[in-house]
């Protein structure tokens, strides 16, 4: 069984982004870029399934600018067998990415597609569900445990207030929550090995997908800043202030 894993190149988790002075977006020039953390978890899960012998091939897919090849090499250093870059410099929104992935699902016929639940740049939380809809496959979002056996995926997923257990017929779409696994560190030998793994580049046109954005960004601004209040010397003063000044207790 093949597994397809979608990986997105995003501004690194530790970078504090700045809004551009013309309010057209955030400034990502000369900023450290990394693989979306949830996608790293997705990649780790796919590689673990391969190590367990459940899966025979792990394919990493990234959609976007030519530099996404870096993200794909990282994916291959974690353990993907090969990579596919759907290369475009157009702005890609989740619906467009889902359509590109659907075209690759048709072509590769994976038994499972694993994606991060959301990207930490646009915070959309859409692509996995959209792909499931377009491919007409069952979905398990926010997965915290994945077991594959006998053509089924047994999934524990995180919901408000606790967990939910689903059984999905394969092929199926899974999106990862934070605590599904702890991704491994990539080692230098694996980085070197990843450089030799196959990486195909296709264009959205090759897949017959129109990626035109549906949502226009009109303006991006800084959020209202919250200013620091006062330090209080002790618990008694804190309680007095909460009662008399803030009136919240």
């Amino acid at each position: 069984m093949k597994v397809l894993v979608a990986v997105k190149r995003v501004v690194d988790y530790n970078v504090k982004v700045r809004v551009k002075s013309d309010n057209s977006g955030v400034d990502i020039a000369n900023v450290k870029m990394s693989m979306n953390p949830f996608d790293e978890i997705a990649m780790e899960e796919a590689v673990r399934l391969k190590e367990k012998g459940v899966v025979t091939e792990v394919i990493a897919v990234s959609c976007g600018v030519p530099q996404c090849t870096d993200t794909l090499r990282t994916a291959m250093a974690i353990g993907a067998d090969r990579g596919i870059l759907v290369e475009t410099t157009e702005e890609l929104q989740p619906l467009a990415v889902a359509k590109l992935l659907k075209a690759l699902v048709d072509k590769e016929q994976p038994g499972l597609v694993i994606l991060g639940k959301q990207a930490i740049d646009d915070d959309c939380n859409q692509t996995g569900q959209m792909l499931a809809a377009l491919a007409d496959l069952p979905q398990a979002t926010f997965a915290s445990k994945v077991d594959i056996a006998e053509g089924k995926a047994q999934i524990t997923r995180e919901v408000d207030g606790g967990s939910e257990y689903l059984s999905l017929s394969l092929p199926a779409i899974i999106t990862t929550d934070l605590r599904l696994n702890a991704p491994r560190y990539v080692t230098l030998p694996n980085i070197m090995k990843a450089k030799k793994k196959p990486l195909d580049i296709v264009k959205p046109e090759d897949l017959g997908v129109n990626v035109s954005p549906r949502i226009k960004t009109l303006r991006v601004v800084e959020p209202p800043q919250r200013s620091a209040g006062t330090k209080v010397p002790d618990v008694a003063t804190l309680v007095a202030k909460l009662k008399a000044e803030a009136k919240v207790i």
Partner: protein
Amino acid sequence: MTSLAQVLVVAEHDNASIKGATLNTVTAAAQCGGDVHVLVAGANAAAAAAAAAQIAGVTKVLHVDDADLAHGLAENVTAQILAVASNYSHLVFPATASGKNVAPRVAAKLDVGQVSDITKVVSADTFERPIYAGNAIATVQSTDAVKVLTVRTTGFDPAAATGGSAAVEVLAAVGASAAVSFMGSEIAKNDRPELTAAKIIVSGGRALGSSEKFMEVMTPLADKLGAAMGASRAAVDAGYAPNDWQVGQTGKIVAPQLYVACGISGAIQHLAGMKDSKVIVAINKDPEAPIFSVADYGLEADLFVAVPELASVL
């Protein structure tokens, strides 16, 4: 806009009652203009449908009842929404675990983009939403005929739960997916308010040191304040608190009247989840902790002393 807006809110409910997030979503829906209808898709959910009909501002409730809708599976709920979608200009969901699960599936089936986590309705097609963990606010315009939205509940006041008298229209179920089965769930039972709806939240960080200490120190304070309990990602990752207590970019987004952060340093991802709280109290022994930069009241102290003392004097 060529025709008047007609908005469908997909209710969050537990079959017996309507969840609070639905009320905030109705408020956002009403701001899109036009009539607001509410879909209650569930099993033995007549009570939830009746409760939806009472929500102020709702003009019609669509009620579908079927065993296959008991657990809100995305595949089945999506089919139900698609059956009525053509009547609506806007399909609006709360940005809860269940709303986030279903909404994109609906949007893709309709071949429209989705606007996630809206915090403001600027006009019927233009919305504000946070990006980059709330470090920037984007104003976005949907160019699609149907707007599919999820609503960040902290961005909108709840609609009044009573005062409305909408008609309840019963619809037929459209059938279920055979590819997915619900096998069970484990939902924590407690008497505390829901994290996202609580007026007061007490939240603990990694400084608590263990799950025993977390409960021992934080629970009395939460009890005294009638508060919900939250945690930082570090505390959850360390196993001190359950996963669904996590407040932050990738956990729950909260905006209570009072947020008490104990032993939480205040990583930007945590701040993204609580900085819209009305009053923030930080208790931390590190004077440099970033949490103090957003706290209305900061107490530089050892939480193992200060938190029990606070609980005892309240």
